């Protein structure tokens, strides 16, 4: 197989991996936060210095499920950061804001003001712009930091 063809296949696999990881980060962020939010609503208001009050929150199954999903979010975010630039990951994963707002509108019938709709469109443009740049522009770790 010609070397250039092998390189093209490698590059395509790399893009595919980055896209799947981005999707995992965004979806787990949205689901985790919605579950955590539902759980904290069940538990009620906690404004306390006592850790026992926070531990009480973990008696709610929605809170526990939300925290588990957010652990998946953190793991997939770290995996994505191992493969892509921070300046790429940040705007691309901001699509979670858009999904949360749209999910709130269609599932929970939240009201979305004109300013919020404009915000959704503006973030979407930011995501598209970042998506068009190469995911990684550095080779190896930043040696000067290590």
């Amino acid at each position, binding site marked *: 197989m010609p070397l250039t063809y092998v390189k093209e296949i490698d590059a395509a696999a790399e893009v595919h*991996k980055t896209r*799947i*990881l981005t999707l995992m980060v965004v979806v787990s962020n949205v689901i985790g936060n919605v579950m955590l939010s539902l759980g904290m609503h069940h538990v009620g208001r906690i*404004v306390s210095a006592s850790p026992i009050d926070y531990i009480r929150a973990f008696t709610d199954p929605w809170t526990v499920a939300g925290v588990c999903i957010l652990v998946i979010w*953190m*793991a997939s*975010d*770290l*995996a994505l*950061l*191992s*493969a892509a*630039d*921070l*300046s*790429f*990951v*940040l*705007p691309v994963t*901001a699509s979670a*804001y858009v999904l949360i*707002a749209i999910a709130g509108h269609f599932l929970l019938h939240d009201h979305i*003001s004109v*300013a*919020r709709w*404009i*915000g*959704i*469109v*503006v*973030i*979407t*443009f*930011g*995501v598209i*712009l*970042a998506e*068009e*740049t190469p995911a990684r*522009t*550095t080779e*190896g*770790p*930043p040696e*000067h*930091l*290590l």
Partner: protein
Amino acid sequence: MKWILVGIIAICNTLGDVLNTAGMKRQGEVEDLRPRTLLRMLAGIFRNPLVMAGLGTLAISFFALLSLLSIANVSFAVPATASSYLLETLLAKYVLKEDVRLRRWAAAVLVAGGVVLLQW
């Protein structure tokens, strides 16, 4: 007090993400998405001082956010979130030496602006 918390959130968020990025680049890119590979990556994190410091910094940011939310409206946290996007892009360029050109700057500015509009 509110603005001190906003500052702590923005700075810790930024530092946490930069440390995590540097640490994960040092640990090496995940080759594939098989559960075994991802579990190996997670195990490696506990031996990675940069990522451990990054996660610790993000934890401080999280508790500062909880404190801020207990004394202020959720919209008060927006300047911290929005400014983090710009600060992190700045550090990505000058500390992590990423190739941040006009398109990525525009993306960061649009997302930061969009986040502000979402809380309007």
